């Protein structure tokens, strides 16, 4: 017990903040990108839909290390895009926190996109027509009618996205590395201390992750449960 207290006192909490920050930012980005992509895909023709859908879902199906490989190819400063980003804007992706966010976003995005799409496809098309005959612009119809009606699906997509982004390991370790205080996320910390045989510290971090996971799910259920209670399902 004393041992645990001592470890807790000396513990570097930076992995917690890095993970949370990464998770929140990646979720916010995925939220808007996912809804945007879902909207485009729902409106497109079936042929195009299959292709675009495949590409957008790929990161979820691929092993994260494969995604990490592609991200490295893309963002390495020895590659055109990486070079361009660095020369023009001073953005460094590899071995930086930005890398953490990009890796987590790419891996978690399909969850948001797929949930949002499924929810939107369930919506009665007459709602859109009704909005149009009432003079509402398509943008207004989307944000005022479609998104709230698809609320439950979008909320569950957001939970899953956050959970996935929070725990991302494979692609993150390849793209951002594990620099303590900079890119060292909880998942990477756990893997690292386990390699050193430090099961106690690993256990503490596991407990932290579990608490966060529970809190998030509880919170989201609370919000969506309250808001969606009165919406009829059809």
């Amino acid at each position, binding site marked *: 017990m004393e041992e645990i207290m001592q470890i807790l006192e000396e513990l570097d909490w930076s992995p917690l903040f890095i993970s949370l920050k990464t998770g929140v930012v990646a979720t916010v980005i995925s939220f808007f990108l996912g809804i945007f992509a879902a909207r485009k895909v729902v409106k497109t023709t079936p042929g195009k839909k299959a292709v675009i859908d495949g590409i957008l879902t790929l990161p979820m199906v691929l092993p994260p290390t494969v995604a990490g490989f592609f991200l490295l190819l893309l963002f390495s400063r020895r590659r055109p895009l990486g070079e361009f980003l660095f020369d023009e804007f001073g953005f460094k992706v590899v071995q930086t926190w930005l890398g953490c966010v990009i890796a987590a976003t790419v891996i978690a995005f399909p969850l948001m996109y797929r949930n949002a799409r499924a929810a939107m496809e369930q919506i009665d098309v*007459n*709602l859109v027509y009704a909005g149009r*005959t*009432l003079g*509402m612009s398509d943008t207004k119809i989307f944000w005022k009618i479609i998104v709230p009606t698809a609320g439950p699906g979008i909320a569950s997509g957001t939970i899953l996205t956050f959970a996935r982004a929070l725990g991302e390991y494979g692609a993150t370790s390849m793209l951002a590395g594990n620099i303590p205080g900079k890119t060292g996320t909880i998942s990477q910390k756990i893997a690292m201390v386990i390699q050193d045989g430090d099961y106690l510290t690993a256990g503490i971090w596991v407990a932290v992750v579990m608490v966060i996971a529970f809190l998030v799910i509880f919170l989201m259920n609370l919000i969506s449960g309250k808001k969606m209670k009165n919406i*009829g399902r059809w």
Partner: protein
Amino acid sequence: MSINVKIKKRLGSFLLDMDFQSESRRIGILGASGCGKSMTLKSIAGIEKPDKGTIIVEGRTLFDQNQKINLKPQKRNVGYLFQNYALFPAMTVEKNIAAGLKGSRQDNENRVREMIRKFRLEGLEKRLPGQLSGGQQQRVALARIMAYEPDVILLDEPFSALDMFLKDQLQQELIEMLDDYKGTVIMVSHNRDEVYRFSEDLIVIDQGKVSASGETKELFQNPVSRAAARLTGCKNFSRINRTDNHTAQALDWGITLHTQREIPEDTGWFGYRAHDFIPVWGERGENMIRFHLEGSALLPFEQNYYLHPEGVEEGAEGYLKEPAASSAHEERDVLCWFVQREKIEVLEEKGNPDFLMFQESKILFLK
């Protein structure tokens, strides 16, 4: 007030070919399901695009294929009441009504409050559509449309989602609520009672085409076409063999009918409403048939008899063996005679009549 629709649209093997105009403020479109009624309304609203033609409402061209005019639904100022009302499920009643409003916040609030009062929705402002009854939902949908002040309101089978016992009351309500609306209202329905009650002008559609049109009451009295007669509730049809201006053989009824009115030369069919037969006991006179009773059904307020006219044998000469649509077959197979409750007692007292008489003034001359 005027509406002028002339459109064509192909959907697979179905061809919608609508051509009608009306000056009336209350127009009914009557047709069986799948005849293209909803497609027509959706074309007027701009939700569907016709392949060709023109749609002109109140002198404003909404669609003209030749001039490449196709206004967006947002610009048409046409209100559409959907069959399922299409209320926005995540918005309260208030927000639903305000959804299409463009004015200042204060104006919108006043407008919403006015609509809430007019459509008797007080106390329901904060409810979500899922918490409302069918009738309340309809009122919200209508309030939402009226708040937006459209030039035309389209009602797409407005009562089909409601329970039978609610319909009558809601039909009356709807008529009253639309009473002070100055624009044109078009109601689409497959129910003859609904359109009869509601519309001044009636358009009957059959298989994507206008089969008959005109003043509603006039059209019910003289439907002109067989499809219109059937949709307005006529049950009995017979192919005829016109012998002179006042006489014709009704082949499927096995009788030669004499009429005071002149039978137009292009008349191909007679129609006769099931309620119009007069039972006769005793001696046979003009325009009477003898029959076998094939079956009967007791309804809450009437008794229906299904009869086979004597002298018409299947396969006999004169009996038509045309491989027509199944409905046409049914029509000729039996004669329908419907007797209202009050009159059943007479029948019970006197027994089945010996003959049924066609009232010559009630015979429909159909093309």
